[in-house]
């Protein structure tokens, strides 16, 4: 258990960023107004990604090293519960909240849990390096990229059966479901993202973004899509409807996960290789500041 509550109970007007430092097992809390790290807390082993529960009340932190999910009350910062889970790396809820899926990148497996009780429903071997997760809009299917084998796997959530596995490009990483149901996959071993048919895994088209295309973040209004390019050290700004590249933002240091400030004016991005978080002002595209955090910052949540 954490010795004390995380400093998440802050004034209603204050904005806060929570960053997971995967290589030193800590969690940084940043005051998003002053851009200062106000605490760094040992949280457990190998924290990589975090999401909030469907009701928005709880942050779930996936601890890949210590095999657990840490539940933090978002309002108070108090740890509510730790749930044993084997090597959870990327995690996600199906849109209807019925299923909770954890991908184990080190151990080549995908676990499907009940979204309410976290009881394990299905455990599937997935060769190799299952990484990022996306769901179909109807909550019937989960798609997981397989970084080690250049593939994408589609799994029926109810039965736990594999629908198909298909090659999509070298070292696929981030994945997101478009409004039309098609999938977009970041091809980290190349310089583009691919649009994939969710019915059979067929590649529909490729859109060049930058070397090491890695992860996605849609804007709040759904009109813009941000793509981190880890090798290029940039973020591509795409029109979400046409997928045309509208601009490129500079984000050196191995840009990885992203989050938008509540007002939508700033893009926060973790820099894996330099232990910092970049804050980019979207109106000008300029780097506003870099906030030092712990080693290998990965997941980020801003509210």
């Amino acid at each position, binding site marked *: 258990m954490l010795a004390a509550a995380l400093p998440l109970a802050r004034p209603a007007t204050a904005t806060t960023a929570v960053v997971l430092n995967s290589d030193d*097992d800590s969690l940084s809390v940043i005051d998003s107004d002053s851009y200062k790290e106000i605490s760094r807390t040992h949280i457990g082993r190998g924290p990589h990604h975090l999401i909030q529960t469907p009701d928005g009340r709880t942050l779930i932190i996936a601890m890949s090293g210590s095999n657990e999910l840490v539940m933090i009350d978002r309002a108070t910062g108090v740890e509510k519960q730790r749930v044993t889970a084997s090597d959870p790396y990327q995690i996600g809820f199906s849109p209807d909240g019925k299923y909770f899926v954890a991908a184990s990148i080190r151990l080549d497996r995908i676990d499907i849990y009940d979204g309410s009780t976290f009881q394990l429903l299905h455990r599937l071997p997935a060769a190799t390096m299952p990484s990022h997760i996306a769901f179909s809009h109807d909550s019937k299917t989960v798609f997981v990229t397989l970084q080690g084998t250049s593939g994408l796997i589609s799994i029926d959530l109810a039965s736990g059966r594999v629908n198909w596995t298909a090659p999509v490009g*070298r070292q696929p990483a981030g994945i997101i479901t478009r409004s039309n149901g098609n999938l977009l996959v970041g091809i980290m071993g190349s310089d583009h993202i691919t649009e994939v048919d969710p019915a059979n895994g067929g590649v529909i088209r490729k859109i060049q973004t930058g070397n090491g295309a890695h992860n996605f973040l849609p804007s709040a209004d759904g009109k813009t899509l941000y793509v981190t390019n880890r090798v290029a050290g940039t973020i591509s700004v795409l029109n979400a409807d046409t997928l045309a590249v509208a601009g490129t933002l500079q984000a050196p240091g191995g840009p990885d996960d992203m989050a938008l400030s509540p007002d939508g004016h700033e893009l926060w991005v973790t820099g894996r290789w330099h232990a910092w978080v970049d804050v980019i002002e979207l109106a000008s595209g300029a780097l506003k500041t870099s906030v030092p955090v712990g080693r290998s910052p990965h997941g980020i949540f801003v509210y």
Partner: protein
Amino acid sequence: MFDAVERMIEQVQGTIFETAIQPALFHLGLMDWSEDVFDGVEFALYGALAVVLAYILCRPLELWRPVERRDEAWGDRRAVRTDIIYTLVHRLGVVPAILFLVLAPIGVAIDSYSRFAGYIPPELEQLWHPLFNHPLATFLAYMVVLDFGEYWRHRLQHRLAWWWALHSLHHDQRQMTLWSDDRNHILDDMLALAWSGTLAMLIGVPPGEYPLMLIGFRLIESLSHTNVRLGFGRVGSLILVGPHYHRVHHAIEHATAPFDRARGCNFAIIFPVWDVIFRTWRPYAGYPQTGVAALGGTAVRCGYLRHQWEGFRRLAAALVHFVDRRRPGFVAAFRAE
């Protein structure tokens, strides 16, 4: 200060990785290795720092009160130069490569299989909750357990004939200095890493902390091999292994029974308490000459590659003897040369 040093290393690591290594991985189609290699760069940097620290800490000691003055006792420094090459090659290249490119994937595969079978390794802080919010205490607790494993590995290095054939390369050194710790055959290093890595996995050492623990071990081992008249006193010698304590382990002859080669004495790497518990502690007052009397120092003055070849020959002789007892063991074979 430590934060500043750590921050500086982070930035150097990030810059090296981002500007030189990541582009190479990208063009070679190896981006799925990026996080492992990133950690490997950190390990090599800390390894370099440990070498610098060892030199800053131990070299003045050797100049201050050497057990053996180099010009008088040794004649030339060829054997020491080989040890320096060992230190640089192994700490900055060979060991990180073995650790991150060979042993880590094997460890992940074993871990994967065991977890899939439902076995999740326990962790010390889960077994003993007070550790949870004290990372430094946790780090030290893991060091104690790993050191216990290292003690028994060291015992086996002396006890098993084939392992002694490899480890004898380390003991053959008659010019022991701060550089001598890394004077090990590459197979011996691989066995050592596999041994401690397996134990680390079984007790749940955080993968990110394991390299730092190895570096902590190496720093103390550099000190314990230093050519200096320095002991830690009656009490201190039971707390931490130092130059005098370890020199007795390296004594050219253990004249007092039962401290012969097979049984030996003062095997501890960091904490002497293991020698006390398992009755291998030898409170010897003098500073003996180092080496292996039976081998006559055959491999002392050669270079790195020949030294490695020597290790393979010794191992082969030991294995041949193991299969056919009529053939001489490696000690007998090499004494005859």
